[in-house]
């Protein structure tokens, strides 16, 4: 179970919280592209800055050269006072757009020529150089100086536009890189991942191995090859797991889990639509006994042999499964009619029933078979196990070792049983269970000495239901204790009312189911309940059956002793029908024996019954046990019983079981002979001592 949970967990979680997919390609792009862009921009800016400074230096150097070359050209006209030529030479340099202004001064410092660019630019730098004049006749003299003012603005503008260009180129390059990364990542990463993912998805659907078709030789190719190898390994393991999950490890037969699938297959692939499917539900009788007698290993061996027999006794198209424990199923997918299905079941049963050697001892297996037959296209085909189980239940409970065929009656019973069983909790909750009381009468005095509490179920649909029908359901549904306490409480309440009605001497008998004898808490509950209703426990009588004593002798004995110590009396019910072990009468602390009505009904006609009752009466008298005759319906029966020494009687002759109110009214109408009854009452008290 836990394994199942573990296996189903991931699958069940997946649709509940689908994790948001974050593609690795996008994550890679987000991780790399901003860095790339930043580095590119920084590198471009760095290169551009260094180029800019170098250009600034070059411009400065060029301006120095311009100044010096102009100084050479200007020296002669300046010296020779051809100032118009000086201006002309100076004007020529104004073609250079970086030059903002230029001026020539003579040796007196007077401005000889000055030119200014049309547009005034900021960021002015200036270079000034002396003008030296010399000729062949005279040494060099300083004729004046030249000054040039120039602007870096053009360089700034150029650098700015180049930066913008670099930015644009950088962005384009980044964009191209992004697309290239996107495409290549899709080819080299996304596609292999998708192929593997698709293989996984397909594999998840049917558990088979689907190789991922990645042929590249890179890491993804290796991963895919490893993945494929792993898939084959996993798929093999899954196949083995699947087989194990669908088969019984002991016998190798398909298990309960396979049954559902097999039925689905039968319904789907059933040959002719009017073909019948025969479903045999087999339960080995007394397999527990074999385990207890020969040990569990032999029990397993026994099951293996049975399974082999089942397999060999059926045709190839038949299907055999072990559902667990000693339960087997055999399905014949095509039978012509119900009779041949029954014959097939009989054949299977015969095969099982051949003797088996276990520990050198012959063991004859016994099994019951529930047979259900349905048409292959029956929509209820999946209910075949349940239906066969109903038949099996019937077989086991009514005729073990036989084949029971499911019919309408069985189904009706089953449905009623199922309805009642399902209605038990509602029955308790809504007080549908009623306790009726039937009087026990002193055969001599005709006085009412006690009442037997008898449970009835007033079902809203089925009317009043007798205990024989619903008590097994109560027991099976684990409600025995609850019902017992229910009856006990009602009985105590009834005792209270009897006392109030002036009948404090009347005792009430309660039937204890076998399971209650094993309940150590019963005695304490009984005392508590009596205390609650303020009635003495000695007014309670507890009726037990012989069967309940046999199943758990020690525990039952202890409980009975405890109950007796509280003052309650113990009556052995239905005496004569079960084991009727006389030893039981001696071994257990009994006060009363109730003779089963089977012995009473033929009296006084049957001499044998009279003899038996006579023996019982004689024995009881010897053992000091009080006798009660059940089922007295006629006056001559009462007379006969009295003559044979039976003290008390119970039956329709006196009173049918009735609800308490009716009983109280009935008692009301009867004369009270309190003193006589008391006087004639058997000495009960000493027995409690």
């Amino acid at each position, binding site marked *: 179970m836990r394994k199942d949970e573990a296996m189903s967990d991931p699958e069940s979680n997946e649709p509940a919280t689908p994790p948001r997919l974050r593609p690795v390609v996008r994550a890679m792009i987000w991780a790399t592209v901003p860095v790339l862009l930043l580095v590119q921009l920084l590198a471009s800016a760095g290169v551009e800055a260094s180029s800019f400074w170098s250009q600034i230096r070059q411009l400065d150097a060029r301006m120095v050269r311009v100044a010096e070359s102009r100084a050479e050209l200007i020296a002669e006209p300046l*010296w*020779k*006072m*051809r*100032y*118009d030529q000086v201006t002309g030479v100076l004007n020529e340099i104004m073609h250079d757009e970086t030059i903002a202004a230029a001026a020539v001064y*003579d*040796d*007196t410092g*007077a401005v000889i020529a000055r030119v200014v660019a049309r547009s005034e630019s900021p960021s002015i730098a200036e270079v000034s150089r002396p003008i030296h004049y010399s000729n062949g*006749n005279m040494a060099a003299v300083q004729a004046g100086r030249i000054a040039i003012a120039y602007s870096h603005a053009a360089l700034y503008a150029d650098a700015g536009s180049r930066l913008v260009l670099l930015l644009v180129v950088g962005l384009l390059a980044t964009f191209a890189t992004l697309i290239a990364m996107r495409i290549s990542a899709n080819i080299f990463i996304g596609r292999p991942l998708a192929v593997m993912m698709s293989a996984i998805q397909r594999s998840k659907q049917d558990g088979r191995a689907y190789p991922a078709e990645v042929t590249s030789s890179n890491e993804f190719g290796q991963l895919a090859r490893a993945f494929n190898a792993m898939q084959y390994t996993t798929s093999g393991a899954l196949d083995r797991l699947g087989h194990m999950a669908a088969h019984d490890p002991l016998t190798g037969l398909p298990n309960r889990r396979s049954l559902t699938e097999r039925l689905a297959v039968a319904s789907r692939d059933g040959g002719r639509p009017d073909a019948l499917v025969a479903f045999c539900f087999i339960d080995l009788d007394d397999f527990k006994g074999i385990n207890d007698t020969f040990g569990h290993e032999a029990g397993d061996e026994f099951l293996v042999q049975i399974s082999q027999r089942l397999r060999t006794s059926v045709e190839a198209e038949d299907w055999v499964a072990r559902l667990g424990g000693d339960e087997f199923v055999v399905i014949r997918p095509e039978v012509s009619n119900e009779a041949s299905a029954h014959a097939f079941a009989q054949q299977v049963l015969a095969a099982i029933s051949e003797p088996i050697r276990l520990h050198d001892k012959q063991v004859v297996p016994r099994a019951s078979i529930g047979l259900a037959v349905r048409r292959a296209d029956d929509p209820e085909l999946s209910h075949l196990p349940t239906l066969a189980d109903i038949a099996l239940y019937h077989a086991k409970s009514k005729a073990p070792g036989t084949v029971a065929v499911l019919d309408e009656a069985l189904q009706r019973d089953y449905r009623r049983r199922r309805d009642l069983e399902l209605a038990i909790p509602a029955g308790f909750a809504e007080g549908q269970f009623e306790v009726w009381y039937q009087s026990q009468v002193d055969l001599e005095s005709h006085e009412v000495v006690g009442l037997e509490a008898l449970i009835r179920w007033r079902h809203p649909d089925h009317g009043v239901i007798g205990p024989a029908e619903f008590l097994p359901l109560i027991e099976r549904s684990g409600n025995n204790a609850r019902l017992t306490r229910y009856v006990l409480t009602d009985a105590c309440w009834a005792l209270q009312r009897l006392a109030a009605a002036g009948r404090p001497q009347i005792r009430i008998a309660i039937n204890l189911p076998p399971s209650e004898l094993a309940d150590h808490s019963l005695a304490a509950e009984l005392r508590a309940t009596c205390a609650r209703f303020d009635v003495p426990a000695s007014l309670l009588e507890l009726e037990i059956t012989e069967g309940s004593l046999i199943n758990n002798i020690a525990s039952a004995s202890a409980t009975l002793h405890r109950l007796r110590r509280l003052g309650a009396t113990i009556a052995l019910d239905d005496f004569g029908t079960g084991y009727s072990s006389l030893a039981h009468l001696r071994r257990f602390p009994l006060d009363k024996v109730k003779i089963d009505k089977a012995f009473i009904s033929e009296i006084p006609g049957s001499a044998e019954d009279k003899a038996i009752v006579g023996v019982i009466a004689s024995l009881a008298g010897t053992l000091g046990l009080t006798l009660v005759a059940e089922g007295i319906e006629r006056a001559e029966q009462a007379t006969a019983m009295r003559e044979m020494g039976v003290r008390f009687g119970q039956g329709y002759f006196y009173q049918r079981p009735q609800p308490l109110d009716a009983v109280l009214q009935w008692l009301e109408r009867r004369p009270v002979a309190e003193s006589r009854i008391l006087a004639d009452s058997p000495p009960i008290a000493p027995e409690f001592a």
Partner: protein
Amino acid sequence: MTRFLRIWLAAGMACGVFASAGPSLAKPLDIVFVNPGKTGEVFWDMVAQTMQAAGRKLDAHVEVLTSERNYRTMQELGLGVVARHDKPDFLILSNEESAAVPILEAAEAAGVKTLLLSNTLIGEDAVRLGPPRQKLKTWLGDITTDLQTAGARMANALIRTARDEKWQSPDGKIHLLGIGGDEITPASIARNAGLKLAVDAAPDVVVDRLLFANWTQSEAEQVTTNYLGWASRKQIRPAGIWAGNDPMALGALRAVVAAGLAPGRDIQLVGLNWSEDALREIRAGRLLLTDGGHFLLGGWSIVLLRDYADGCDFAAASPHVEVKTSAITRQNLGSVGDLIKTRAFDRIDFARFRARAGRCGHYDFSLDALISSLPVPEGAAD
């Protein structure tokens, strides 16, 4: 009076005819002059006019072709003359900017005799072609002016005046401005060298600048203005301006006046060329002197060629004939002023300047000789 003059003239003419016929049999000469100057350019016009006046006196037909200051045109004209079917007897060229060299060589090939006037071969050409009549047999020689002496004479006149007037600057020196025409023409170089020669000999004199004005009045005015401004900023008192020719002297004069100086009283200027305008300024006392008279080279060249054609070769003394110039001041202005003003060069008796027999190559082209060759004007006679 008139009768007397007529008789004197007739006698003179007869004498002249006899005198010219004297040394040899006179043969009419055909002479072409390729004029490097422009029409209206005073100096070269006057060279051509004296040449033609001398031709008329010495039985030579002088054809003047004007190149209009374009050396390409000058070469085309010269080569055209050399290629003529009817070649002239002599071709007179001026080697301005060394443009006459190809013509000389072509004339050698064609057998046309050449004479260089005013500018002769210089530098590489002189080395390559050697002296006259060696490599180039038809190149007879050259007739030039001694302009260096002229330049020095002009400078010395300035220095003398400045010393007399005590026009020293605060540094105790006499500061002069020189204005040259250009730096490559031999005629210019010689004048400038004369200036330097004179100043070098005078320790109390300094030439602040030798400026160049392309021989033109306007440029001279411009540079003089610049100089005067500079000098005033330098606390210099300019004492004199030496100009390589009269137009530049007149330009400087205008600048001086514009600068608020009084020429002749505050500062002295000298020029060269004997131009009419210069003579007028001399008369007005604003120009100290104008040197020159070398336009007469035109007439003298015809004298040389007449003698050569008549068998009295000037190369007997030297193929290089150098003529001295003279200064016209207020003192001698009256003698030649009218001649120049009226360009009445026919008044000059060029035949008187021919070499004497046995003294071929020896000529007296001085101002005094010229003045004495002129008939006494009526006014002067009065």
